[in-house]
């Protein structure tokens, strides 16, 4: 009981310190110089209407590279931890209802298409690699829900993940060789502002990121799902 009281007191002091931080904070009236630069020059330099994507993919592309590595490592660790069980064992599962099967057959292609749409148009409309990948992963969950033994092979996802990751690195290195620096999107022509194939390599990078995130999250789910049955 005393422990809880003590923690409460502790959090009260922490809260008070955050409160003092908040008090000094003034809501800005205009954009700060850095973001003003991005907003004004962004479209010309990078050619992507969606400024957030512009920052995420090119300006701070190195962060996104780090970001993808984090997901890659998490997927690898989940795989490392749950690898001990052998995969291809037959096990009895109660069958799912017919309605679920029908819905799944209808929804699955739509969701995949929706996911691809999101990361293809990352630079035009809100969305991008991460969101697209997540939608694809949810599609996978739907499949696994309806049929846990579905023959989705791990190999396929791993290959997809490695291909997209490696090509992401190739684009980065190309940036160094051809254009200004690592992950620069000027290796491809900026094209007309606003249509699909514009803003240099951004759509290419973001689709690879989308594929990679999608396959990683699905491999995490697959790892978790495959061990559905209790293991000896």
């Amino acid at each position, binding site marked *: 009981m005393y422990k809880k009281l003590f923690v409460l007191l502790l959090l009260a002091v922490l809260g008070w310190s955050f409160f003092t931080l908040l008090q000094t904070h003034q809501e800005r009236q205009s954009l700060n110089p850095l973001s003003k630069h991005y907003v004004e020059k962004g479209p010309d330099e990078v050619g992507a209407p969606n*400024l*957030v994507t512009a*920052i995420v993919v090119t*300006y701070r592309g190195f*962060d996104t590279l780090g*970001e993808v590595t984090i997901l890659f*490592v998490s997927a690898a660790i989940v795989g490392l931890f*749950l690898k001990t069980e052998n995969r291809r064992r037959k096990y009895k599962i109660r069958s799912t209802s017919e309605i679920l099967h029908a819905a799944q057959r209808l929804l699955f292609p739509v969701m995949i298409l929706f996911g691809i749409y999101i990361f293809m148009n990352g630079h035009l409309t809100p969305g991008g690699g991460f969101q697209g990948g997540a939608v694809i992963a949810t599609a996978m969950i739907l499949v696994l829900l309806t049929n846990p033994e579905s023959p989705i092979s791990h190999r396929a996802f791993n290959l997809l993940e490695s291909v997209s990751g490696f090509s992401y690195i190739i684009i980065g290195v190309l940036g160094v060789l051809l254009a200004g620096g690592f992950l620069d999107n000027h290796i491809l022509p900026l094209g007309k502002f606003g249509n699909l194939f514009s803003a240099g390599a951004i759509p290419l990078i973001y689709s690879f990121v989308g594929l990679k*995130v999608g396959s990683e999250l699905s491999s995490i789910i697959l790892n978790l799902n495959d061990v559905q049955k209790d293991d000896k």
Partner: protein
Amino acid sequence: MNFFSVQGISLTIGFILILIGLWGILTQRNLIRIIIGFTIFNNGVNLIIVALAYMKGRTAPIIDQVVTRTDAVDKVADPIPQALVLTAIVIGVGVTAVMLSYTLRMYRAKHSLEINVFTESKW
């Protein structure tokens, strides 16, 4: 700092979520609840980041017919924190996934989810 604006409210909510998250981490004994505490903690931090990007009456930083290239500067919210928070959310997921797999292996080792059971390496 007027606490009556959208930014003010969301910042306060963010900090309160952080405190609730920490409360969950420090007092709950079940491992799953501790990880839930973490998700709340991350949620709070992400909320603060996005709240700082918002300005009164501003819209999404995407240039389209409504927000033209010329007057974007006074219409658009700050895009940089939004870019950062994307990374933060995905880090949150990554960390949660790793923690959960740890909980799985710990459960397999000691068949318990109480954190005070796992005090093998101490002193």
